[in-house]
């Protein structure tokens, strides 16, 4: 398979599965479109008819509040019909295969599937399977990708920093298990950020991560020096149970973002987090709620980005 499964023959976007391999022009086009939707979202009447009559299925095989809600709001503001399915609780437990579930929903005249699944590659598999008129948006697959999160982070960075070509961005934390980090790294390198760093203990970094175009740091003081954007990743509690890390306390001491550690970065650095946050584990509350934090605007921009993606894929 040498073709890019998310592009049409003419190079336009058919699905959004990953940022890996997407040309800069497409990313920029999505960000520009999202920019337009930010103003709509600030108006009193927040609806546009771009997806009127379209049926969008939110297929969540893994629990999610924020992502599912923002996808739902985005679809509704585009006037689509939205159907939310929490699959882990229904047919999968009855033994129906993933593709059977998809076939049944496709037979209900779906136009788009927004998919979240615990397995890397699930969205690709669904995209390979569905009829040509159906679009698939990956809302997070295993450790692989979360492209709309990556894009909303880029929109946030562009809003606060203006350009990408002169930035230094550090991603801190559990890169190994993070689909968000992978999408961010691809987006940042594609958009021309000259220096992308990852900072974490070795147990939380995947093999060969430097080949994704990042510089590896194990020390926050060195890694955050002269950084314009600090992205903190969520550290799931379950990571403490194995041998990856000794304790949340030690992690916070060495890698948690405190005001002191943030002071290593540029004075005008912004702090981002994809949520949900573990305060006192990967980020100190003072920082999370501080004036450098853009964590809540990220959520707002998430709606605009998802509107942009859905309207570009299936817009009338």
């Amino acid at each position, binding site marked *: 398979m040498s073709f890019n499964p998310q592009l049409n023959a003419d190079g336009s976007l058919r699905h959004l599965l990953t940022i890996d391999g997407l040309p800069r022009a497409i990313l920029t086009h999505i960000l520009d479109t999202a920019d337009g939707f930010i103003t709509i979202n600030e108006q009193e009447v927040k609806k546009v008819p771009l997806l009127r009559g379209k049926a969008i299925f939110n297929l969540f095989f893994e629990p999610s509040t924020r992502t599912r809600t923002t996808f739902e709001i985005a679809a509704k503001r585009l006037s689509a019909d939205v159907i939310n399915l929490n699959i882990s609780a229904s047919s999968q437990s009855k033994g129906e295969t993933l593709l059977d579930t998809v076939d049944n929903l496709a037979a209900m005249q779906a136009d788009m599937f927004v998919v979240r699944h615990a*397995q*890397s*590659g699930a969205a690709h598999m669904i995209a390979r399977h569905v009829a040509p008129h159906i679009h698939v948006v990956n809302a997070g697959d295993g*450790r692989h990708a979360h492209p709309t999160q990556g894009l909303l982070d880029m929109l946030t960075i562009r809003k606060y920093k203006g350009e990408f070509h002169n930035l230094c961005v550090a991603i801190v934390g559990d890169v190994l298990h993070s689909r968000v980090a992978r999408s961010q790294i691809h987006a940042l390198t594609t958009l021309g950020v000259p220096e992308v760093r990852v900072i974490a203990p070795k147990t939380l970094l*995947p*093999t060969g991560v430097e080949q994704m175009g990042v510089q590896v740091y194990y020390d926050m003081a060195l890694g955050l020096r002269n950084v314009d954007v600090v992205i903190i990743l969520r550290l799931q509690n379950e990571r403490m149970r194995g041998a990856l890390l000794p304790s949340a306390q030690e992690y916070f001491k060495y890698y948690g973002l405190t005001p002191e550690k943030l002071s290593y970065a540029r004075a005008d650095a912004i702090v981002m987090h994809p949520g949900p946050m573990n305060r006192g584990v990967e980020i100190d509350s003072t920082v999370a709620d501080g004036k450098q934090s853009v964590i809540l605007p990220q959520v707002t921009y998430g709606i605009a980005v998802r509107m942009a993606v859905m309207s570009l894929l299936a817009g009338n």
Partner: protein
Amino acid sequence: MKIQIKNGRVIDPKSRFDQITDIYIAAGKIVAIGDEPQGFHANRVIDASGCIVCPGLVDLAARLREPGFEYRATLESEMNAACAGGVTSLACPPDTDPPLDEPGLVEMLKFRAQNLNQARVYPIGALTQKLEGLRLTEMAELRDAGCVGFSQADAAITDTQVLVRALEYAATFGFTVWLRPQDAYLARGGVAHDGFVATRLGLPAIPHSAETIAVATILLLVRETGARVHLCRLSSAQAIDMVRQAKVDGLGISCDVSINHLHLSEMDIGYFDPNYHLVPPLRTTRDRDAIRAGLASGTIDALCSNHTPVDDDAKQMPFGEAEPGATGLELLLPLALKWADEDRIDLLDAIARITLDPARVLGLDAGYLAVGHVADLCLFDPEKRWRVEPAALRSQGKNTPFLGYEMQATVVYTLIEGQIVFDAAAP
């Protein structure tokens, strides 16, 4: 039935014979190569012009899926696939359901296979009961029932003391223990090689060390126990180096690789194609090159199909959840020839790796052509191309990473004990 095979290029890896000539078969045996014996009247004459006649293939790993997995494949379907692939002898791993850990199960399998009158089936018995890695099976009883070696298939022995005892006990009787080297802890949860591809795709990974640590352990225990071990499905360059050194040191060790690992690497996974979810995982191109070189030099004794038919439902899943494995019986010959062609390997050596050499690993008097020897042979057209697609495969398993590939050799006839068990022209 007397058969004359005319004008074929006869290749025998044992005597290193390679000549266009005739073969005469009577009463299940080769009665002459070259001149027609006096008074020979063929019932059937096969014109082998342009074709190669070689010993029937010997495959060290073919899962026939019986008992227990008949929805994936049956003995009938897979024995047909073997014949269509030119395979006349095959070893089957014990990971059936239930596993081959009792003489009755082995006898039943042998009986069912014999009634089909096709490829010779050599069961590998379970090394531990239920393949749980805890208690030894009745190896001597299983040998009497027909087992030619003992294995854990892809199941782990995590307790090294059990492994030591299994090796000691097997060595007592001179049995060969077949082990796929893998440290169960290092491989836990992994579905792809621990390298850049798995990192980019976000797939849980299995490092090289999962294999090399296990190989190191096994080699040390072979030295200590004197057991004879066959290492199955090596996947890493370093493991092959370790085996090379062990052979120099005179250890009783042999090893094989699969057709998939001979040709593919992690890069081929592409966009999560579940057909590339294999055990062990596809590794780097450097590992693949070492496998090709090791097979050429003979450090790796044999090439096997690692035939693992998987049903569609189990394969059409996200990469990590998809059942690993690939169908292979019908691809063993063409993929061996593809390797020979690409790496300029002497045809005699390439054929030896799928006939004579695996027969030696099994301790069989097979895999060669000689007057007076049983007539198990494969006749193939080296120029007749075919495309791998589900309809072209007789195996019930249609899962293979080579779907869509063009193969450059086609089996025309397969003979077992002088009987034509496969005729490509037959309807």
